[in-house]
């Protein structure tokens, strides 16, 4: 896949510098361009919310820093964890005294660096709690759900945490709401083509012209199965069934449904899949409370999509419905 880039090694710093030029009212950095924070942080009386992870997934991660969502994000190189130091510097900046919640995907490098940062933050008397996102049903069976990786479902976690924190809730309360949300969030993805990490310069995996990889991760992690490319309806049924089997919603349940493009798949195709999801859910008496159709968590130029289902109750609906505004995501 061809890229519009300069020096591969400068890719992330260049995009971050452009980000601060584009959105100076909303975003600035602390110590290092990789440590992105809300310009108005710390927000008095509010728990600080931080995330982080590798680049290459925009709008994830930094795209959710803004009103009603996150306060800071530590940005790693493409598909690489940020360093403990970078995480620590946003932690210090966004703490208003009410503590900081880390919400990020369950990846080894990220876990270790966030943990190191948390240890250092505690030495500075900043209270830190961590909620890991592990929503990808394709990455481990239910009995090993703790091993699952975190993918697009984190966007809903950010949304819920942000709304809860905005209500003035305590660190423990925000963590509890976020954990409750994540217990009701499941994702699964399919990839049709690979992405290419700029400094590597070759596709992460190769895939035939008529093949697809069901259960693909967002860094090119292999999925459950390499198969013949199927129709939109067949793919949609497969993924919907797998998520429903895991999440087990019942008739009358309300779901937020995210149909997320991984990068190269047109919005038109996402809508075609949504149509089928809607139909399958309707047949089971399950209600789509709110659809989110677009690119929310990408793998650069990967073709493919992920579905995230989020089972809601009244409390979660109130939090999901709260307005949010970041340079990449606006909800009225």
């Amino acid at each position: 896949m061809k890229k519009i880039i300069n020096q591969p090694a400068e890719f992330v710093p260049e995009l971050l510098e452009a980000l601060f030029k584009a959105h100076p009212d909303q975003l600035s950095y602390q110590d290092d361009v990789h440590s992105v924070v809300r310009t108005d942080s710390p927000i008095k009386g509010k728990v600080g919310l931080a995330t982080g992870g590798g680049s290459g997934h925009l709008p994830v991660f930094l795209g959710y820093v803004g009103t009603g969502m996150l306060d800071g994000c530590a940005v790693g190189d493409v598909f690489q964890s940020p360093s403990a130091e970078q995480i620590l510097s946003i932690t210090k900046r966004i703490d208003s005294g009410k503590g900081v919640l880390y919400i990020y995907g369950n990846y080894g490098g990220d876990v270790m660096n966030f943990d190191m940062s948390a240890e250092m933050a505690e030495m500075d008397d900043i209270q830190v709690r961590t909620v890991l996102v592990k929503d990808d049903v394709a990455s481990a069976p239910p009995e090993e759900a703790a091993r699952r990786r975190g993918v697009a479902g984190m966007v809903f976690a950010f949304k819920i945490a942000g709304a809860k924190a905005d209500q003035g809730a305590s660190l423990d309360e925000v963590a509890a709401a976020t954990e409750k949300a994540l217990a009701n969030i499941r994702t699964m993805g399919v990839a049709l083509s690979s992405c290419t990490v700029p400094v590597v310069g070759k596709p992460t995996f190769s895939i035939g012209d008529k093949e697809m990889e069901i259960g693909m991760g967002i860094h090119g992690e292999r999925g459950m199965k390499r198969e013949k490319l199927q129709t939109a309806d067949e793919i949609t049924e497969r993924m919907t069934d797998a998520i429903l089997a895991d999440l087990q919603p019942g008739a009358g349940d309300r779901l937020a449904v995210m149909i997320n493009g991984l990068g190269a798949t047109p919005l038109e195709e996402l809508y075609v899949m949504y149509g089928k999801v809607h139909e399958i859910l309707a047949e089971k008496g399950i209600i789509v409370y709110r659809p989110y159709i677009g690119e929310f968590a990408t793998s650069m130029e990967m073709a493919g999509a992920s579905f995230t289902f989020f089972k809601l109750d009244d409390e979660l609906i109130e939090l999901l419905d709260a307005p949010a505004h970041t340079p990449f995501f606006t909800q009225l």
Partner: protein
Amino acid sequence: MDNSIIFKGADVAAALIRVGDALISQREHLTDLDQAMGDGDLGITTSKTGEALKAYASDTLSGDDLGKYLSAAGMKVNSAAPSTMGTLLATALMRAGKEVKGRSELDGPALATMLQAAYQGMMERGKAKLGDKTILDALGPAAVAFNNALDEGDDLPTAGDKMIFAAEEGLAAVTPLRSQIGRASWVGERTEGLVDPGCAALVIILQAIVNG
């Protein structure tokens, strides 16, 4: 070299540079291994680690305290390459350094302690256990073999060779297994029969340390 050999700051710096060079030169190989069962970034991580080690060892005087010197090297590695392997290697350096805080010279037993501490540190940081098919499965046996060899009176070169041999044996022992932790664990049974990239990196590092 025999058992009474003593390493000073310059020796340690030279070892860091050798490790750096080896990690850089094996970039493609490690990338290929990690593409087969992970995300294909290990070569990038190790070459960034290598560059950071070389820059550090060239720019920083080792001074009187080799413990501090190694811990600071660990911090540099974490900043330069904060992915799983980079962070584990950073942790190893920091924990090994902690063991020899205040010392300006290192002997065989010190090295054995450092190796054991590195292993312990990685285990605590990464929360993996032996048999999960990670770098620990090469480092654990290597640390034990090195310590045993010294206990049994082997000279340092012999102990070093035994250490490398144990690491290679550890790598081979877990190759048939399925990865149980980290990114490779999501690949499931498809990892059976594939070499763990972290084990391969560890063997490269130990070879570079020994073959000075």
